[in-house]
């Protein structure tokens, strides 16, 4: 059996109520949350291979205890600027950078 190829980093969507965002707002309004998820294996550079090696043995040999991420991460490269909604007490709120607009392996 061939191993399932991991999905590459991309933008995903989920419908949620504002309350479910965990930002402390109480509103039943539904929003579309866009987030980044997926593998970045295809984007590894020599830097990442070196870092992986260094965290395993290299740093120790040179007397360092640094921790370094050993590969590119799937993160938003841009956010949706602002979004506003009416809370359950009929007050308007505007929140920024809640939803991703673009994703990238960085």
């Amino acid at each position, binding site marked *: 059996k061939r191993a399932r190829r991991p999905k590459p980093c991309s933008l995903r969507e989920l419908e949620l109520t504002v309350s479910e965002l965990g930002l402390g707002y109480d509103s039943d*309004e*539904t*929003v579309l949350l866009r987030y980044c998820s997926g593998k970045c294996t295809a984007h590894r550079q020599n830097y990442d291979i070196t870092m992986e090696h260094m965290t395993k043995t290299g740093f120790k040999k040179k007397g360092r205890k640094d921790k370094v991420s050993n590969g590119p991460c799937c993160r938003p490269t841009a956010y949706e600027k602002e979004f506003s*909604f*009416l809370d359950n007490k009929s007050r308007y709120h*505007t929140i920024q950078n809640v939803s991703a607009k673009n994703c990238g392996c960085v």
Partner: protein
Amino acid sequence: MVLITLITLVFVLDVCDSELGSPGWREPLDCVRASELCNQNSQCSSRYRIMRQCLSGGDKERSAMLASKECQGALEVLQDSPLYDCRCKRGMKKELQCLQNYWSIHMGLTEDRDDAFRAFKRRYLNAEDVCRGTAETVDEEKEPEERQDQINVTGEHREDKASTYLIYSVYQRTWRSISARLNQPHPVSKASLSGRDIKPQHQYHADFQGGEEFYETSPYEPIHFSEEFRHASIISDSSLTKVSPCSEAGKPCNPCLDAAKACNLNETCKRLRSAYNSICSKAVPPQSSLANQEPCSRKRCQKALRQFFERVSWELSYPLLFCFCPDQACAERRRRTIVPSCSHQERHKPSCLELRHTCRSDALCRSRLADFHMNCQMTPHTVTSCPHDNYHGCLMSYVGLIGSDVTPNYSDSNPSNITISLWCSCRGTGSQEPECEAFHRDFTHNTCLKNAIQSFGYGSEGGTLLATEAPSTILPPAQPPVIS
């Protein structure tokens, strides 16, 4: 018989008009194009320039200017130009310019009612004399109500769009002439108007205090009964037609929340809604003096609101504004849709006539108001009490007012009994109170508007939901200003 002759007249006139080479009624020119055409003609363009000068001054100067020989002469010439019949499209490119061109002629016309009447006669009755020999005219000597009936009978042939438009044009002009006559009531109309019930007298009384006409002709093209609109509102819950959208058992029901969801899931709607919400609820940092402190930037807020309603399709924006509400929380959400604390309310509550005056000094607001009066005017002759039973037209012209100086809104969060009002009052307006009340009642006690909003919320054509108001509430103030 009357009906037949009127229709004959209408068609004869139309033929006549096209033979004379003036622009046909079916597709009126837009006023930007019309002024271009006028400028190509040396006589027309010079008169047009004069006319614009006539209108340039303040209120008092203007009426003096308009009465002058020069301005009257210019107006005479312009009434035979393409500018006289031109109209604007909602949301067209250069809409503001178009509206300004429109009013540059029509302001002159409306300032002097007698003149408008003379123009009407000259253009539509004399032309007809010349062209045919037999067809009867709209009977000049009949009582206004009877004439109104004549016109309304013809209005029933609304399936035929072309003829509807034709009739509409005649209707507009006849209406103007009725108002003109009522301005100087002759014995017959005076007696007949004061004694009748049901007929909404203020539809005719169009009094003229302070040189302002009560109702003005809309510069916009008439809104036809849009089939698309009608179906969409039915389809939205086809199985539940004429049943409340909340009749589905077990599911929590809040159509206003559903509307917000639909908007949030659409990029344009979400972006523009967020834009006006954040502008309208952002407090302006207090200036050096405390007196300057404003809760928000009203002008920017209103502009953002206008953009929202202009650029977002009605399928997404109307449900936010006209959603059906089972409870108060929902109705409060509906009331807050346009962020009334910024766009609707003000610290100072002006008199409604002041508000109307402010609106009329702005071409866009003036046009939207005239359009509202044209499309949401209560009429006793239709089931829905809307002109031509056209809900779409009424809602569209209502939405057109949002973001103008006369931004209407729900006056409270009562879920079942909808009341719309402007931020103004008529208290202390003295002798002008009846006129003021009549103006505000077109919002607060408008059965057509109420029916249109409720019918939209239910996703049906209304039917059993028609608001039935006691006849007395349709009536204007007990003493119409016509009688003095």
